[in-house]
């Protein structure tokens, strides 16, 4: 408290330090730029997309991209098997995929934080019960579990999000619980207890912020996993339904044109790969920047 009066130059803020470490990593920076472009495309899809994603131009079926023979400048990336503009579908697909990724992470992280803290602080059977339930979810292969859940509640975009949220919940619960357990016996938590802070306050205000670093990294990777999983479900016909321009769905319906119109197949997959790769690059960069071992050295 005494240092307050000593008007020392403020130390660089924590966020600034993290940004310094993060921006040194060229891959992470490249990933971030790609992601920003993707987000811009997703948000302004209505303005950026030259056509409607579901309008079928019956006279322009399977037009190759404009740089290939037979291409048409009206459809820069060509059209699909029903004459829909590929570029517009891809742009609207970015909106869907990023939305799925974020929705899943927000939902599973919120539920994971509550359950994880609960499991860490509850000394009774409830904590064990939560953990055992998570073990059960973890022991079913994630895509299979998604498939079963979707089979029960029906294939749709919303249900895809619900299924993937359930499947990824255990990762957050375990992570939050483990970090909370590590923090719980630290002096500052005991001090808060002695000071008479309520249990909820200790859980969410005292302990939770100190579990943030691993959570942020897990959340970043969670977005890319969710996008892959959702595309996989869409590809199997168990996710979003046609004519939704979801990237996995686009791949599924284009399969039979693999030979005659390969661009219908290559483009949506490339979009998935680039997005997921960009997110993973950012995740790797965050992991390095937030790693306390590296920060101290």
């Amino acid at each position: 408290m005494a240092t307050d009066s000593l008007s020392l130059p403020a130390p660089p803020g924590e966020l600034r330090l993290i940004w310094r470490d993060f921006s040194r990593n060229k891959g992470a920076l490249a990933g971030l730029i790609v992601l920003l472009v993707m987000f811009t495309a997703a948000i302004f899809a209505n303005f950026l997309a030259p056509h409607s994603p579901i309008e079928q131009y019956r006279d322009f079926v399977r037009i190759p991209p404009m740089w290939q023979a037979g291409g048409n400048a009206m459809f820069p990336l060509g059209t699909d098997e029903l004459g829909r503009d590929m570029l517009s579908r891809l742009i609207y697909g970015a909106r869907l995929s990023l939305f799925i990724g974020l929705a899943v992470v927000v939902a599973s992280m919120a539920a994971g934080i509550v359950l994880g803290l609960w499991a860490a602080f509850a000394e009774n059977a409830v904590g064990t019960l939560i953990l055992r339930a998570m073990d059960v979810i973890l022991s079913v292969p994630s895509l299979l579990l998604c498939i079963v859940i979707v089979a029960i509640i029906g294939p749709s975009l919303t249900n895809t999000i619900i299924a993937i949220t359930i499947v990824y919940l255990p990762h957050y619960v375990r992570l939050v619980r483990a970090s909370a357990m590590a923090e719980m016996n630290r002096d500052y938590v005991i001090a808060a207890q002695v000071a008479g802070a309520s249990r909820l306050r200790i859980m969410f205000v005292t302990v939770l912020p100190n579990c943030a670093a691993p959570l942020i990294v897990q959340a970043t990777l969670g977005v890319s996993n969710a996008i892959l999983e959702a595309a996989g479900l869409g590809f199997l016909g168990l996710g979003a339904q046609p004519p939704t321009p979801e990237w996995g769905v686009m791949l599924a319906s284009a399969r039979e044109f693999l030979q005659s119109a390969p661009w219908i197949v290559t483009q949506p997959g490339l979009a998935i790969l680039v997005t997921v790769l960009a997110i993973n690059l950012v995740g790797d960069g965050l992991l390095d920047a937030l790693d306390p071992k590296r920060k101290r050295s």
Partner: protein
Amino acid sequence: MLRFFLRRVALVIPTFLAIAFFTFVAIRMVPGDPVEVRTGERGISPERLAEVRAELGLDQPIWKQFLDYLGGVFHGNFGLSIVTHEPVWTEFWTLFPATLELTLAALLFAIVVGIPSGVLAALKRGSIVDHGLMGLALTGFSMPIFWWGLLLVLFFSVELGWTPVSGRIDLLYYFEPVTGFMLIDSLLSDQDGAFLSTLSHLVLPAIVLGTVPLATIARMTRSAMLEVLNEDYVRTARAKGLSPMRVVGLHALRNALIPVVTVIGLQMGMLMGGAVLTEYIFSWPGIGNWLIEAINRRDYPVLQGGILMVSTVVILVNLLVDLTYGLINPRIRHGH
């Protein structure tokens, strides 16, 4: 040590029961009446409907149905497929070798390429080789494998004509399955070209399914190697004047492999999920395709039994990994 073993094994039982219960309840919540699907008659008479329901045991209270089901499970009786009328247990074991063969081939590919890549990247830390390999690994890790499969088919099967597009073996060949592993069976059959045909069918699916584990193993090997290379015993070995090969191979790699082996074991669940997509692309006659078909046909018993058995395989593999890890790691071996 014994306590650790028993505790770990004991944990498997409630997990198994919970999955059995979950699949049982979940499958009953699936919309669509299995009886209608089975009889395939629109406007079936109420008497006939009741008859079929009684035949399938669907008229019993749900808890009774579950206990009956569980009793059967412990005798290897998972019920009959509503579509084929074959026992689910038999169907599973007919198809499982195909999935296992694919999974093992994928894992082999991932290990054989992944571990050397990780070691190389660690030894050349910071170099172009390291950055290149790790860039590739991250790309593999981010790969939508269903698309990767289509690309490989497009290039190797359609363009080059090197590998077949689907199935496990050419229709030319026929022999009775002995082990269920086509690679072994084709050798045993003594038919010319059967083995090569099997191999060429297996290569692409194995690469597709092995890509993500390969990336994971390479990344894990690299970081484990980097950690170990800084350890005192490696420095001592170097100071003793041992050849670099000996230091890396004998002292560093062996210790670095402990976490890598764990990661490999834990890939099993991921591989089973990935196998669904891979089998779907290559029309591989395995568990994944079987389950997808079961969903489309609303074949409850198959779905329920199949998920339970696949999960059990994953649980047992994870258990095995944990126990092996306990054997290797002295900190676990001596209490805790």
